[in-house]
């Protein structure tokens, strides 16, 4: 492994680091070097060990073997605090905020600017937070409590937090997973300027185009083992994918033409005070409808209302011609509706339960006979779907929380596909999922469509929308701004509608 300036000492480095959880060997003898003024990408499939590596760097996990080097000197981080004090700022894959505290306090917890007698200076805390948001170009109220923020907004707060350190090393674990193009552009702008000021950056994303856009070097992991570290230029997407997956990858958006059938889901004039207004659309069986829009446009809100998790104030939802009772997910399920929610940790999975229990939570009736659970049935149902979606796990009895982000997402998909729904709503289905799996998920979706399932796909990943959707609905400020058929759907047309530039079509 060679790097451009041999004389230069890496700001932060790992040498031969191994980390195991029970029998799961998340990292085996991995080495990595971060240099000042360089943006370094970390690539790998779900469960490859990226987040674990980061947690090792950040002092969350103590490596079983190997050493962490700071300016070439071996160090032991006894906790996140140590790493922080050493100038290492980390954005973790899953936002970890204090729901009860204001956004501003979330950013500066433990580092608040102080007045005389060590008292916290609340005014300057608020001002500093506002300034950070201005830099990132987001308009969050520093006094707003973190509870109730959308995943995207949470992620933005995390980013602001990391930036507030003006650290020597900035580590970002899938910071863009929840963000839309414009915000990503903003973020990259800020990161580049930091890099030019001499900060070392470690960046993880499953969106390879982002890797190529931001980074100079890339390190690839597979099954916890180091595969390669190399400069980005002269490297093609396919090469990178090959390193990650270990084989060539077939098409990323395998959209099969399915013949469109009767209307399966129809939403009429749906309105929820202050969240979305007068939303009407239809999804036909065999059709994949994309729902695009900027963060906070209210897409998830619509999905939640349709599925009955949130009540709606006006309008009507019909599944297979029959109207749905508002606010009753169980009835919606019975009617053949399924929702893969946006926030897998809070909404998609019961973190404290095993993989098996999570998958079967949607099939309690199916796996019970005469009101008594049938263990065999439960296990086979879980195994069946876990294997079909190639979830990487040790035992079905393990806590789902111990799975890697992407594998968690697969479990959510498994639990809903297992209900063989007639209408499937997926909110950010491939958020934080690696290219390989992404392709599988897409194949799965179009396969389902082929079997006559009506699919509504909410996504902030525009290529995904364009690649998969038969029709694209675009939301803007809680309203449907446009409906664009596949033929006319382009980056420009969709973004125009999403930002409210074009008047509302359709």
């Amino acid at each position, binding site marked *: 492994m060679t790097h451009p300036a041999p004389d230069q000492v890496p700001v932060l480095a790992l040498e031969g680091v191994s980390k195991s959880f029970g029998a799961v060997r998340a990292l085996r003898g991995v080495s990595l070097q971060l240099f000042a003024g360089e943006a370094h990408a970390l690539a790998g499939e779900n469960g490859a060990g990226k987040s674990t590596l980061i947690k090792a760097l950040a002092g*969350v996990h103590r490596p079983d073997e190997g050493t962490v080097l700071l300016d070439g000197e071996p160090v032991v981080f006894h*906790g*996140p*605090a140590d790493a*922080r004090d050493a100038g290492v700022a*980390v954005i*973790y894959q899953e936002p*970890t*905020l*204090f*729901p*009860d*505290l*204001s956004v501003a*306090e979330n950013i500066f*917890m*433990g580092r*608040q600017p*102080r007045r005389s007698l*060590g*008292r*916290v200076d*609340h005014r300057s805390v*608020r*001002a500093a*937070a*506002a300034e950070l*948001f*201005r830099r990132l*170009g*987001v*308009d*969050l*109220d*520093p*006094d*707003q*409590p973190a509870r*109730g923020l959308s995943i995207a907004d949470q992620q933005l707060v995390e980013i602001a937090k990391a930036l507030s350190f003006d650290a020597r090393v900035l580590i970002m674990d899938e910071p863009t997973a929840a963000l839309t193009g*414009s*915000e990503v552009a*903003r973020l990259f702008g800020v990161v580049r300027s930091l890099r030019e000021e001499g900060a070392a950056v470690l960046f993880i994303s499953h969106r390879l185009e982002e890797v190529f856009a931001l980074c100079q070097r890339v390190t690839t992991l597979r099954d916890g083992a180091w595969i390669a570290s190399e400069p980005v230029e002269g490297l093609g997407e396919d090469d990178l994918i090959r390193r990650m997956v270990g084989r060539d990858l077939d098409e990323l958006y395998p959209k099969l033409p399915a013949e469109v059938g009767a209307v399966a889901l129809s939403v009429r004039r749906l309105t929820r*005070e*202050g*969240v979305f207004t007068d939303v009407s659309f239809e999804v036909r069986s065999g059709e994949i409808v994309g729902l695009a829009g*900027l963060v*906070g446009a*209210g897409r998830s809100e619509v999905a939640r209302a349709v599925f009955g998790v949130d009540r709606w104030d006006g309008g009507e939802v019909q599944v297979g011609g029959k109207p749905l009772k508002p606010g009753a997910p169980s009835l919606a399920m019975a009617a053949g509706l399924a929702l893969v929610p946006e926030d897998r940790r809070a909404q998609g999975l019961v973190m404290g339960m095993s993989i098996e229990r999570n998958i079967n939570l949607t099939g309690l009736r199916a796996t019970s006979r005469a009101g008594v659970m049938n263990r065999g049935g439960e296990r086979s149902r879980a195994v069946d779907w876990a294997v079909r979606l190639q979830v990487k796990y040790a035992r079905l009895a393990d806590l789902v929380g111990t799975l890697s982000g992407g594998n968690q997402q697969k479990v959510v998909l498994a639990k809903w596909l297992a209900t063989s729904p007639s209408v499937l709503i997926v909110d950010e289905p491939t958020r934080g999922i690696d290219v390989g799996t992404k392709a599988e998920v897409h194949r799965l979706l179009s396969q389902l469509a082929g079997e006559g399932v009506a699919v509504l796909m909410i996504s902030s990943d525009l290529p995904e929308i364009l690649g998969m959707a038969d029709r694209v609905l675009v939301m*803007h*400020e*809680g309203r449907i701004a446009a409906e664009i058929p596949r033929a006319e759907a382009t980056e420009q047309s969709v973004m125009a509608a999403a*930002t*409210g530039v074009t008047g509302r079509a359709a």
Partner: protein
Amino acid sequence: MTTTAEPVRVAVPPSGGLLDRVLKMRELAILAVLVLMLAATQIDNSAFLSQQGIKDLLLNATILVLVAVGEAMVVITRNVDLSVGSVLGITAFAAGDFLQGGGNPLLAVVLAVALGAAFGALNGLLVSIGQVPALVVTLGTLYIIRGVDSIWVGSREITASVLPSGFVDFGHNGLSALPYLAVLAAVVLVAVAYFLRNYRSGREFYALGSSPEAAGLAGVPVRKRILAAYIACGALAGLAGALYLARFGNVDSGTGSGYELTVVSAVVVGGVAFTGGSGSVYGVALGALLLTSINSVLPSIGVSSVWVQAIDGILLLLAIAVDRVLALRVTGVLRKRAAETRSARHG
């Protein structure tokens, strides 16, 4: 997206921090209930808010306020201390025993506080180092301390006669209607509130109560803070024990048993959520004042003590219900604001 100018306007709302407004509102709710109740009583019985009457109200609240404030600190960190009643009992007797031997009153108070802090440390260590559910551990120490107390005390009791008269007078005298004990409690209350609001460590109490996991990642010294909260709680229970002795001049092995429920009610009524991370000690103090006032109000408007308990409970339910309704209103405001913010975007 937004122009760079816009967010600043949104970010620092002219109306000041919404959070604070919410908190204030919650305390206002309890305050309103309290004032209403006292006013009604005064109208019914003009003797109620006589100098003696006010003095009694404040005196009755003092001890509960102290313990509840301590409990609140623990609850804010998403833990709980059920052993406060037992701690109060044993520290009260320890102080009495010391005074009985002709000890100095000031030393006696210090002794009680120190002893309480020690028990707090015990709880804190078990919870933070052992990382075991606070509810179980402190229920355990509730029994242990109570048992040790009654073994040690046996059938002995401290009566006013063996206490230095100065100490006993301190228990019920004061500046006109303002008893010394109440002043002491008020000082403690303000100090704790100021600490929680204006010091990093204070804010960290809220942080780790709000999300222990996030606190760990943010480098909050979780164990140290939890330990601190328990020590403070124990110390305050100890102080309360000493004051109990001064106030009632009478302590035996049963003193303070069952008190934990009253304390927990005060905390809950005061608007401190058991899920941690929210609430203020001022609210708790008001909650305590409310609860103790109920027990003075009912007898003095001639409600037969047969009815007292039922009314107690129903008022408690009423208080938390009112508080809840307000909280719901606030989330409504939040949502509206989110909507406004969104439409404020994009020109």
